[in-house]
């Protein structure tokens, strides 16, 4: 292959292509963020019994994690009380529904809300991306626009030199679609600056979060009775240690120099 392939380009290319695409990308990102914030539905109020059930579950979880804060006798008392009530089902929202098994995710309205929310979020991501890609292909295809400063393998030619007819062109010359991809990934930090770090235009972290959550959303609500039984079992096996045990020695050690 020849050494550096040189192509003379019209400087007007930049003002009419690079900049507009960049501006559009930034604006769509901001638009996406505001759209998803507006589309979020307010959290629904839950009935008192359900609240009680949830929070009792949380209380038992707290006891399980933080048992070291209280003395052994205090822990013992609480443990017995919680286990007894959990087994008896005193915390359940709907004591008559015991033993009926998991609620079907399709029929439980609360789950539907959760799934709809997620789908809305996904749609808000996908639609603008496909729209922009279509727009770029329609208006900006058929020519190379710039030269990448670094080389890539020839496999990328297919993607990055989408509409160009020649075959021998160096991979470094790319079409506007590749600029789209570059900005797609590279504007994350810019969004972080403008919108604060909690923004909805953060594509990479969203995809990672989705892949981690993958199994759960279709699992549906757990049967509360089973949850309580599981908690009771976990509580039974705990070996208590008291964080106040030896704390004075630890403290003295830390403040050695100050005395």
């Amino acid at each position, binding site marked *: 292959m020849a050494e550096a392939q040189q192509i003379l380009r019209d400087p007007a290319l930049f003002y009419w292509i690079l900049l507009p695409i960049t501006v559009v990308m930034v604006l769509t990102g901001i638009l996406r963020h505001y759209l998803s914030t507006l589309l979020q539905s307010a959290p629904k109020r839950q009935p008192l019994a359900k609240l009680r059930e949830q929070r009792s579950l949380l209380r038992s979880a707290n006891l399980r994690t933080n048992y070291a804060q209280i003395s052994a006798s205090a822990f013992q008392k609480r443990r017995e009380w919680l286990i007894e009530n959990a087994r008896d089902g005193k915390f359940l929202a709907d004591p008559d529904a015991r033993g009926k098994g998991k609620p079907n995710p399709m029929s439980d309205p609360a789950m539907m809300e959760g799934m709809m929310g997620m789908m809305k979020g996904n749609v808000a991501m996908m639609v603008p991306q496909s729209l922009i890609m279509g727009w770029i292909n329609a208006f900006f295809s058929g020519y190379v626009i710039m030269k990448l400063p*670094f080389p890539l393998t020839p496999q990328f030619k297919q993607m990055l030199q989408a509409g160009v007819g020649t075959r021998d062109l160096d991979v470094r010359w790319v079409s506007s679609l590749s600029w789209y991809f570059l900005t797609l*990934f590279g504007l994350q*930090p*810019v969004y972080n600056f403008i919108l604060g770090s909690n923004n909805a235009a953060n594509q990479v972290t969203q995809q990672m979060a989705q892949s981690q959550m993958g199994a759960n959303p279709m699992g549906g609500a757990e049967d509360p009775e089973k949850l309580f039984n599981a908690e009771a079992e976990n509580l039974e096996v705990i070996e208590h240690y008291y964080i106040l045990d030896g704390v004075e020695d*630890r403290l003295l050690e830390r403040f050695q120099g100050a005395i």
Partner: protein
Amino acid sequence: MLDERELATRPIVQDSVQHNARTVSNIRALTASLFGVAAGTLGLESIPGFIFYALGTAVVSVLIFAFKAESEPKAYFYRPMADLWAGDMFGGLMSFVLTWTLFYNLAKA
């Protein structure tokens, strides 16, 4: 991971960890785009360009270490090797490539 008891006696505050990580991330992204501008206007090509980025990031890391973390990375970061020195490389790299490409083309034409 730290022993569970050690964690109970010297807890790690989630908020602070996130705040520190966010600060480092912001600094890296900002400096990375500036380095991209520099590399582009200098007309650096492939390998020299990346070496420039690596050098620049190392310098920035040293500065973070000296000024922000006051030479005591263990107090600010749970795993200083991973967080301070090599933190958030990917985001920084993308900003770098973006601005590098942009300015390379502006300068070359």
